């Protein structure tokens, strides 16, 4: 099975691992991620103003390219997923944005939200299935106690992201079980890490990440996993230095026995 793939700016730079382990794992699981040509940065955060058009066009170009190839669009970075999924919802459901974006882009056929946007974790859950993934694991991470860190971008707003229950998600916990480890449920797993606030207000982000890591440690987690490079960065600046943070794809590649190939 072939999918269009949107890596995003950070996965080409500071988060190369997140990307490389995903590609190696995809290969091991028998699906192909075909990187979209000439993709442009999604902008990192969704433009909230209802009159914002230009800031949404890079997402529309990626969505349309996947549409023209007849493929679903796979995302990996939480921020890219959030932005592209929300812009796709605008293109499908908001007449004014669809009209103005298409006027600007002058595509051969107007784009109206046809592409399905799928996060890599959703692909594991909905297409491969966690039961099947479990069977493919050659190196189960038995005994590891892992806290899933969801953050905000994958879950909210739940009406549009439709990723999982926004207050009591379980997709990453199910993933942790599938790779043979033990999930640790802790209360701050869907609270914000501070996001972009850490550029100018480092203390504010640090306080928030301290709450998250103290909560996870207190409930017995040995490590956290995330899909977001910015969550990773902020969490690593937290005071709780004994709690390592990994990209979920690294543990996936390890469990599938393909870590060295990444």
């Amino acid at each position, binding site marked *: 099975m072939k999918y269009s793939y949107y890596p995003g700016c950070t996965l080409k730079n500071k*988060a190369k691992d997140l990307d490389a382990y995903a590609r190696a794992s995809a290969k091991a699981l028998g699906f192909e991620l075909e990187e979209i040509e000439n993709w442009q940065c999604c902008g*990192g955060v969704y433009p909230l103003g209802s009159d914002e058009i230009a800031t949404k066009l890079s997402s529309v170009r990626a969505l349309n390219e996947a549409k023209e190839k007849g493929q679903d669009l796979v995302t990996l970075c939480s921020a890219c997923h959030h932005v592209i999924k929300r812009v796709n919802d605008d293109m499908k459901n908001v007449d004014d944005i669809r009209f103005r974006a298409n006027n600007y882009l002058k595509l051969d056929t107007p784009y109206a939200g046809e592409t399905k946007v799928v996060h890599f974790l959703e692909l594991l859950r909905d297409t491969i299935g966690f039961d099947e993934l479990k069977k493919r694991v050659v190196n189960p991470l038995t005994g590891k106690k892992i806290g899933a860190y969801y953050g905000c971008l994958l879950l909210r707003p739940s009406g549009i992201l439709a990723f999982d229950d926004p207050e009591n998600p379980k997709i990453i916990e199910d993933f942790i079980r599938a790779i043979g480890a033990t999930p640790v449920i802790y209360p701050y797993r869907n609270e914000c890490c501070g*996001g*972009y606030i850490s*550029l*100018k207000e480092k203390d504010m982000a640090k306080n928030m990440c301290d709450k998250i890591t103290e909560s996870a440690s207190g409930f017995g987690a040995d490590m956290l996993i995330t899909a977001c490079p910015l969550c990773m960065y902020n969490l690593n600046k937290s005071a709780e230095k004994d709690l390592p943070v990994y990209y979920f794809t690294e543990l996936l590649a390890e469990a599938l026995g393909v870590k060295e190939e990444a």
Partner: protein
Amino acid sequence: MSHAKNQAERVREISGVNPLKCMKCGKCSATCPAFNEMDIKPHQFVSYVANENVEELVKSESLWKCLSCFACVERCPRDVKPGKIIDAARQLVVRERGGNYLTADEIPELLDEDMPQQLLVSAYRRYKR
């Protein structure tokens, strides 16, 4: 239309929010992770727009403390979206000449070697035009 009325109308347009839907339950402020840092609190954003006092709102430090984490949006029982109101107020500021909260000149001293590109593009989009 008076300036105050015009500003309030602009916030309503940009945000797409109808402030009159709010029933003042305060859940947005209770759930906001940046609450302690804010001078005007999330449940008050709505009143500033309804009372056409956007002049005060755009001067608020809260514009630069909001994380766009959507906790207030997700948990509002009336679907009012306070996070979109504060973004609209922020837009009124950064769309004006000289209104940027972040300039390119500031970036070099804020950088560290682990900083993901995602942080810079996100901050740029929220803080400047």
